[in-house]
C-alpha cells in the first residue's frame, strides 16, 4: 500500500517540469510583484528609520554609511573580513532552513554553535594526528556534537512532548555554562596564563594542522575554507530539498504533518533528523569559528559572538530558502565587519544591531501583510456572495 503511494510521489518529472520547479523554488512564494514592492518599501523605511536615529542622536548618517562601506567592501582586506563573518552565518542559516522546512522551529543555534566549538576544540587538542586529517576530525566532531545537542530537544519532544522552541531556547543557557565549566576545568581545557600574564580561562590554541586555511589567495583577498564549506553546504541542501525524495518528504512534513503521515512518511524519524541536521550545521559553524585562519583559535566562553542568533535571522530574511541565504549571509557579514569599523567614526557599533533587526522586520512582514490583505479582500467577496441567496443547484453542489 505504502509502496504504491510512494511510487506515484517519486515519479520523475520531465525536463520541462523540473525547470519550472527550480524556477518556482527561486522566486519568492505567494506574492509576486506586490511582495517585492512591499519588501523594497520596508527596506527603505528600515534604512530611513536607522538614518533618522543616527541624525537625532547627533551623528551623520552619510558618514556612518560610508564607514560601513569602507569597513566591509571598500578594499580587498575588508572583503576578506566580510567573508570571514559570512561563513559561519551561512552555515547556521542553511541548517535553520532544513529544520524550518520540516515545520520545526529551532532557535537554539547559539548553544549548538558553542557545543560544536567545545567538542571541536576537545578533539583537536587531544588527538595527535597529522594536519588535514585532524581538521576533518575536528569538523566532524563539531557537527556531530551540535547535532546531538539539538537531537536532545527532539528526543524530549518525542518522549514527553516538551515544546521544541522552549527546550532549544533553554539549552542555549545550559550550553553557555557547559562551555564556561569546560574551560575552567584543567582536565578538560584550561589555560589561565599565557607567559606571565593571567588571562581569563580559555583552551590552548589548536595546533596549526587543525586550522582552516584559505582556499584562494589573491594579492589581498583571502577566501577562507569555512566559506567554501558553507557554500557547498548551501548548494547541497538546496538541491536535496528541491530534488530528492528526502527533500520532498521533509517539505510535505512541514506543510501538513498529517498528510505526510498518511502518505507513509516516518514523521518522528524525519522530523528528529531535520532538527539534528540543523544542529549539526550550527556545530560546524562553531568549528569554523574555532579554526578560522585568523583569530585566537582557542575555545573561549564568548566564541559564539551571537553568530547563532544572527544566522537564525539570516534564515528568516531568506525565508528559509538555502540559496537565498547566500546573499543574505553576505549582507549580514557586511553589517558585522562594517560595524566594527563604524566605531572609529564615533558612532557606537550597536547601531548595527538596530539596523539588522529593522531589516529583518522589513523582509519578514511584507509577505504576511500581503497575504492578509488578500484574505480580507477574498473574505469581503465571499461575504457579499453569501448575502445573496445562491441558486438551488449551487447549494446542492456545495
Amino acid at each position: 500500500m505504502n509502496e504504491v503511494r510512494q511510487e506515484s510521489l517519486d515519479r520523475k518529472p520531465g525536463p520541462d517540469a523540473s525547470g519550472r520547479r527550480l524556477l518556482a523554488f527561486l522566486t519568492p512564494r505567494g506574492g509576486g510583484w506586490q511582495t517585492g514592492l512591499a519588501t523594497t518599501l520596508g527596506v527603505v523605511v528600515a534604512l530611513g528609520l536607522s538614518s533618522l536615529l543616527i541624525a537625532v542622536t547627533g551623528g551623520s548618517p552619510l558618514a556612518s554609511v560610508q564607514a560601513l562601506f569602507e569597513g566591509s567592501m571598500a578594499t580587498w582586506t575588508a572583503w576578506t573580513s566580510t567573508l570571514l563573518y559570512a561563513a559561519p552565518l551561512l552555515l547556521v542559516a542553511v541548517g535553520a532552513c532544513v529544520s524550518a522546512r520540516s515545520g520545526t522551529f529551532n532557535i537554539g543555534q547559539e548553544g549548538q554553535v558553542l557545543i560544536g566549538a567545545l567538542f571541536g576544540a576537545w578533539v583537536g587538542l587531544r588527538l595527535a594526528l597529522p594536519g588535514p586529517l585532524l581538521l576533518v576530525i575536528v569538523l566532524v566532531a563539531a557537527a556531530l556534537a551540535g547535532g546531538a545537542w539539538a537531537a536532545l530537544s527532539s528526543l524530549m519532544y518525542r518522549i514527553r512532548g516538551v515544546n521544541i522552541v522552549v527546550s532549544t531556547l533553554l539549552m542555549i543557557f545550559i550550553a553557555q555554562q557547559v562551555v564556561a565549566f569546560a574551560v575552567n576545568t584543567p582536565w578538560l581545557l584550561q589555560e589561565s596564563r599565557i607567559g606571565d600574564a593571567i588571562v581569563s580561562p580559555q583552551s590552548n590554541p589548536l595546533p596549526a594542522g587543525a586550522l582552516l586555511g584559505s582556499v584562494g589567495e589573491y594579492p589581498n583577498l583571502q577566501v577562507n575554507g569555512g566559506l567554501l564549506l558553507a557554500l557547498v553546504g548551501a548548494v547541497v541542501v538546496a538541491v536535496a530539498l528541491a530534488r530528492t525524495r528526502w527533500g520532498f518528504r521533509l517539505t510535505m512534513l512541514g506543510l501538513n504533518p498529517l498528510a505526510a503521515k498518511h502518505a507513509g512518511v516516518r514523521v518522528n524519524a524525519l522530523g528528529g533528523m531535520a532538527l539534528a541536521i540543523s544542529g549539526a550545521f550550527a556545530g560546524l559553524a562553531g568549528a569554523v569559528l574555532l579554526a578560522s585562519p585568523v583569530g585566537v583559535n582557542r575555545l573561549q566562553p564568548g566564541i559564539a559572538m551571537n553568530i547563532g542568533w544572527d544566522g537564525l535571522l539570516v534564515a528568516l530574511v531568506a525565508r528559509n530558502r538555502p540559496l537565498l541565504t547566500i546573499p543574505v549571509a553576505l549582507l549580514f557579514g557586511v553589517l558585522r565587519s562594517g560595524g566594527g569599523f563604524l566605531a572609529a567614526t564615533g558612532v557606537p557599533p550597536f547601531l548595527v544591531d538596530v539596523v539588522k533587526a529593522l531589516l529583518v522586520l522589513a523582509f519578514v512582514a511584507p509577505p504576511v501583510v500581503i497575504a492578509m490583505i488578500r484574505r480580507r479582500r477574498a473574505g469581503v467577496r465571499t461575504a457579499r456572495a453569501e448575502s445573496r441567496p445562491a441558486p438551488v443547484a449551487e447549494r446542492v453542489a456545495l
Partner: protein
Amino acid sequence: MIGADDISTILSSGIRLTVPLAFAACGEYLAERAGAMNISVEAMMLGAAFGAVATASATGSATTGLVAGVLIGLLIGFVHGNLSHRLEINTFVIGLVLNALVLGLTSYLITISSFDSHQVSQVSIPWLRDIPVIGHPLFVERWPVYLLIVIVPLTWWLVERSRWGLELRAVGEQPQAADVTGIRVNLRRRQALLWCGALAGLGGAYLAVGEVGSFNQNMTAGRGYIVIAAVIFGAWRLRRTLIGCALFGLADAMRLALPALGLTMNSQLLVVAPYLFALLAMLLFANQNREPRALGQPFERGST
C-alpha cells in the same frame, strides 16, 4: 558555619532578585494562558529598564521613571500584539526580532548618553522588621516590592475568576471554539500581551530604579528567559510559577553569596540550575496536559 545573619543576607538578596522575575512572571503567565507565547519579555524588561532610568534622570523622580518603564513595556506589548496577533507574523520570529532590536537600541543609546542615578525610596515597616532572620529581608524593602501584594491576587482573580479570564483561558485552550461563541480571539491575546507588557515593564523598571539605580548594557541578562522558564516550571499555575521565581532568585543569590561565605561550589552549576530545573519540570509535567493547548499557535479565522 552559616549564621542567622548570613541567612538573612542571602534571603534579602534572594528576594531582591526574585521581585523583578515575579512581576514579569505574572504577566507572562497571563499571556501564556491566553495562548500567546511571548518570548519578548526580555525586550520588555530591558526596554523598560532603560526608559525608567532615562525618565528618572530627566525628571529627577524615580517614581516617574517607574511609570515610564510600565509605559514602555505596554508599548512593546502593543507592538508585539499587533504584529503577531493582528498581522499574524510568527510570534517567535517577532519575539526574536524585538529582543534583538531592544538590545541593540538600548546598548546604542546608553553609549551616547549618561544618566544620573535615582532609586525609589525604601519602606521599613515598624515592629515587623524586628523579627529575627526574616524581619529585615521581608519588611525593609523598596516600596514597589509591596505592589506584588496587589498584583499577584489581581492576576489570579483576572485569570481564574473574572469573565474576561474565562474567555482568556478558552482562547488559550480552544481558539476555534472560542471564536464560534463570539469571542474575538486575537483581540483577547493582544489584551493579554498588554498586561504582560505592563508587568514585565514594571519588573524591568524595578530592576533599574529599584535595585541598581542605573542602566548597564544588557542589564536584564536573560532574566526574561528565566521568566518563561518559571512559567513552564510552574506548569502554567500562578502559585507554582511564583515558587519557581523564588527558586531561581534564591539560586542566583546563593551564587553571589557562596564565595563570600567561604564555601566553594561550582558557580556554573548554580547559574545553570534554573534552566535545568525548568527542563526537568517540563520533562516531568509535560504529560499532565497543563500546557494551554493553543500555546504559540497563531489563530486565523476560518482556518479550521
